[in-house]
């Protein structure tokens, strides 16, 4: 509510104000309020020894006020703060740059900020795309419900059947990598890449389906990213709403590629590191962002000097290289602290562990189904694919997915990974 009110009134004032320095102050107020909240709730912990509520009792004894604050921060982090903060920030920045007219109705603006399907984990929508849809009168339509149902069905399948079944395997390997045989450690490490993708893409599809029931079309957040043949393409297909946000509100204002080479390198690294930092207050996220930044730079520099021929073999080799690099980089995203890296890396190459992960036939079947679906939806979406199929085949697919969700879904409690951000 605080973010909503600040941005609503700041944008109104920005629109009325013509003097530049006053406009800058108003923008500063909005940015400080939003980023201040984000910092207080998400990043304060990086600079403090611990906010575990029970450990924070030691502060309560010696520094009662600090203890109270720490416990307050620990217990009241608003869900999805990173997502709606960025959504409102883009609104204020767009008004500041005169790209859009500010919203005059507080209720409509509040709906834009808190539209429930995408409130907690995106997609991070732009005002110019979402608001006109929110204001349009929508009529109940069978075709829309059908499309929404298909999106949600596939979203539930990949979240509940793929992500939630992989999660215990991934957790087991990441908790004790040296206990596992080498193939299990590799499998667990790479399985996290699949888990985080299906978890987040599943959520995004469910959100899109839920919004579509209300007549709102949210943007696509993922487009089969693991089939990318370059790191640049990967970021055009992965968490699209966030990567385009960083492109439009950080990279381009920094000068984009119309700057000196050194400055461009710095800009690229800055964008990727900030995107890592966006995920949370841990050095591991910064390193993850930096790795992607460096991969991107290397790729661009290679291409700048000598553009490789785009043969199938080159593209395939590029795809494999990107798949491996991205999945190795996920290691830094998944671990809790840098101290875990030596043990994990050692286990990947020199493990003496004997434990093996067990992959049940249902899990293997569902993984194959998922890979097949990914291949068939390359450059399209599941609902679009289904609409091209004959009714009998479509119903067979529905039945198969229903069966997987009902009988083979994972059961241990795994909240959506991106809810923590």
């Amino acid at each position, binding site marked *: 509510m605080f973010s909503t009110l600040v941005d609503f009134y700041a944008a109104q004032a920005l629109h009325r104000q013509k003097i530049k320095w006053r406009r800058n102050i108003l923008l500063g107020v909005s940015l400080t309020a939003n980023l201040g909240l984000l910092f207080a709730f998400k990043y304060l912990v990086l600079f403090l020894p611990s906010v575990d*509520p029970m450990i924070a*009792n030691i502060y309560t004894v010696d520094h009662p006020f600090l203890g109270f604050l720490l416990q307050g921060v620990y217990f009241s982090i608003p869900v999805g703060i990173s997502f709606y903060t960025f959504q409102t920030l883009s609104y204020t920045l767009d008004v500041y740059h005169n790209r859009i007219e500010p919203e005059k109705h507080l209720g409509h603006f509040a709906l834009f900020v808190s539209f429930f399907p995408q409130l907690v984990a995106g997609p991070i929508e732009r005002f110019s795309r979402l608001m006109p849809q929110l204001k349009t009168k929508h009529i*109940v339509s069978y075709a829309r419900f059908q499309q929404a149902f298909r999106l949600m069905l596939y979203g539930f399948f990949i979240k509940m059947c793929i992500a939630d079944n992989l999660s215990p395997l991934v957790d087991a390997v990441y908790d004790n990598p040296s206990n596992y045989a080498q193939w299990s450690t590799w499998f667990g490490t790479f399985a996290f890449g699949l888990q985080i993708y299906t978890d987040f893409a599943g959520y995004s599809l469910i959100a899109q389906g839920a919004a579509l029931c209300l007549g709102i079309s949210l943007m696509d957040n993922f487009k089969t990213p693991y089939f990318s043949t370059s790191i640049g393409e990967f970021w055009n297909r992965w968490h699209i709403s966030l990567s385009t946000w960083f492109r439009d509100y950080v990279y381009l204002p920094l000068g984009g590629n119309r700057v000196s080479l050194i400055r461009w390198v710095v800009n690229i690294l800055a964008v990727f590191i900030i995107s890592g930092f966006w995920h949370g207050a841990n050095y591991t996220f910064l390193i993850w962002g930096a790795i992607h930044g460096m991969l991107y730079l290397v790729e661009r520099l290679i291409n700048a000097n000598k553009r490789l021929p785009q043969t199938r073999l080159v593209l395939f080799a590029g795809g494999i290289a990107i798949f491996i690099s991205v999945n190795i980089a996920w290691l830094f995203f998944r671990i809790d602290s840098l101290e875990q890296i030596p043990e994990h890396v050692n286990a990947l190459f020199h493990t003496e562990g004997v434990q093996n992960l067990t992959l049940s036939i249902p899990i293997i079947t569902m993984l194959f189904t998922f890979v097949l679906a990914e291949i068939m939806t390359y450059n399209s979406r599941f609902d679009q694919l289904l609409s091209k199929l004959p009714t009998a085949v479509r119903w067979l697919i529905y039945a198969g997915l229903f069966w997987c969700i*009902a009988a083979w879904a*994972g*059961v*241990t409690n795994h909240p959506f990974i991106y809810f923590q951000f």
Partner: protein
Amino acid sequence: MGQEIKHILSKGLVRLISIGLLAVGFNQLYTTYFLEADLDDHGPMLLELNKIADTSDVIYFGESSNFTTHPDDYNTLRISDNIAVKHPNYSFGTINHGAYHVGMFLPLVKQVQTTKEPKTIIVTMNLRTFNQDVIYGPSEANLRLASRFYQPTLPILNKVFASLNHYDNRSGHERDLLKWKAWTYDTLVSTDDSVHFKVNTIRRWCEVPKFLDSAGVQDNAKRQLADQYIKAYAFQIDDSNPMVQEFDELLQVAQQKNMRVVFNLIPENVEDAAYYIGDNLVWLMQTNRDFLVERYTNLGATVVDNLELLPSKHFLDRAVIPQEHYDAKGRELVGLQVAQVL
């Protein structure tokens, strides 16, 4: 628009019926080929119950107090075994699993088939499970997941609900918050003129310095154990306690199924509670005991009050934590008490 809604309803109805038929078929398939593996992983006690329920005159529902032993024990008989040896004419069945409490026993009791012959169930009643530390404990979400699988509904429905986390699956973070709030704000009220609480919340009570030597230095080992006693027993049970509500329902279900219910209120280390904390904590334990005994006796159950049955020497973990794990003699004495009421 009206026509579109009609269109949706007519098409939707056909699809709903098809989905219903599909669900029935899926349930059969799931129950036949996949249920056992899921129960093995998440709710093993239902498989156990299915094995013993038909053939047992008496079923003992227990937790780790029943089966925990010590290497020096003169025998490894469980509490339930000790009861059984006193009644050789009854066939006994035991359902026990570490950390289980009434939340898991209730759906299992619902799964026991109603029979013409009266059956007796003995249900472990652990005073400590009524406290905030257990109710908001870190293992509670997993236990409630098991409980989901024990519900007497279509097995595939249980699986779907479990997958959708339709059970009390609050995170450790949420539970920490609730526990922290309870320890900070739930106040202890004396109803006895001889009992006065100088500090009346768990948090404040834990903050009070304890076991100070002449130089004013605390004996940390003792202080930590003392605080564990406060967290374990400094609470007051009333109707709103979720465990009380589940015990109420369990009793009601069992009575409807023509079962006799015996609650085995298992021993706590009252002697050490008095040593580490004092009479105020013992008073709380006793008033809670009185509440439970009176309530469930009035409701028609037999409550075996073993709260103060055992001296400290019979508690295996007394040097570490207040816990209901007894040596062989302790298990035998508890078994004897219960056997007497059968």
